[in-house]
């Protein structure tokens, strides 16, 4: 299920002129964003994408970032196939069509 670019998205485009990117939501987090598998949002950087989540999908945001705004320790954020830790972290630049994927780190025990 893909989130339609609703009125708020149009307004956000007009306001910021940022490229539209897609956030892929992992299954474990879909309950916190009304079941959407993807969110289409305007953002120039990963940080801006997270700020957009904080503003428009606060429950999802709280699962991804802690109170200080840091991405939770056991989550990985990818831009297309690259972990942002190997790029510029949350300051990684986004271009139109990029897919940002949030995934729990592999763990055992």
């Amino acid at each position, binding site marked *: 299920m893909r989130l339609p670019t609703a009125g708020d998205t149009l307004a956000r485009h007009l306001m910021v002129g940022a490229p539209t990117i897609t956030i892929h939501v992992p299954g474990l987090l879909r309950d916190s964003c009304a079941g959407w598998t993807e969110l289409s949002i305007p953002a120039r950087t990963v940080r801006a994408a997270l700020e957009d989540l904080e503003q428009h999908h606060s429950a999802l945001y709280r699962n991804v970032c802690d*109170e200080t705004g840091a991405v939770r320790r056991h989550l990985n954020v990818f831009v297309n196939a690259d972990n942002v830790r190997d790029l510029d972290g949350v300051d990684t630049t986004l271009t139109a069509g990029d897919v940002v994927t949030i995934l729990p780190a592999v763990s055992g025990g």
Partner: protein
Amino acid sequence: MADRVLLTIGTKKGVFVADAAKARRAFTLRGPFGPGVPVYSTLIDARGTPRLYASCCNPFFGMKVLRSTDMGKSFTETKSAPAFPKEDGRALVNIWSLEAGGGKKDLLCGVEPASLFRSPDGGDSWEMVPGISNHEHARQWQPGGGGLCMHTIIRDGNRVHLGISTGGHYVSEDGGSTFTASNKGVGAGFAPDPYPEFGQCVHKMARHDDAPGRLYMQNHGGWSEWTGPGGPRPGIGVLRSDDYGRSWRSIAKGLPSDFGFPIVVHPHDADTVYVMPLEPSTRTCPGAAPAVWRSENGGDSWSRLARGLPKKQTYFTVQRDAMDVDRLKTPALYFGTTTGQLWIGREGGEQWDCLFDSLPPIHNVKVAVV
């Protein structure tokens, strides 16, 4: 009319609920509830229609609070969980304690890093309690082996006692607005100064309504053979206060070890107190033979309760919130182990039976008659 014995069991893989008729012959187990992540605190809030709460310490997606309004048949997330204000700079690591507050739906929650939160609506919204969370000592507390946790919240009218590892014992006399470190006689074996103003590694505290001013404490003991500066520090692990926690004295004499985690008071006798001595280095039972120790005179002497428990080759730990006692006329004790057994001590701990022997590692056991 209260006619069921209800247990909440917080484990490494979620929360379980068990219940039985008052005879406690057979318990039915439900669960695990939650997303399979550790549950360090549970609460059976029996004020009015019972509500069950469980912390849900999700290492991936952060801390949640789960709530059940159907006696533990199902749990759902509350609308929010405790969280520090963004400008505070701290981030929640774990939820260590959930207790009923003063109002009908008030809850109190102790967290890591050590801070206190209050909810006025059964866990749907939370606010930080600044009197302790922003206490002048707060940024000087250090984490113990389990983290920097606020694990004990005891309400006594307008008084609130808090146990922090490692921060020590703090008390409020004004309903939780302001707090004072109150650790006279509480030793810190791991510090050059064995009796600091604060910074002790308190493991658990307990009190009884019938003994105003009396508190029991399981502190971080195990320093009787310390050879560093200041010499041995025996008996600092099990303590008692008779002045609302202003001063403390050792009641460890007669125990095989003054190290342990839980401490529990008999529901109908303030002089009867239970501990679970452990070897300080391994956190397992002395001689690999587990036993609960009971004092019936406020800590002046102790007796060993082990009938039905394994007699050898047993190496579990019982964590700070993994022992509780029910309030029936002849109460039973319950403890859960890090190896996943849940034990019941019938007749006040005289006879032990294993209720469940293959649960995930157990962090927390609470019991109520509802």
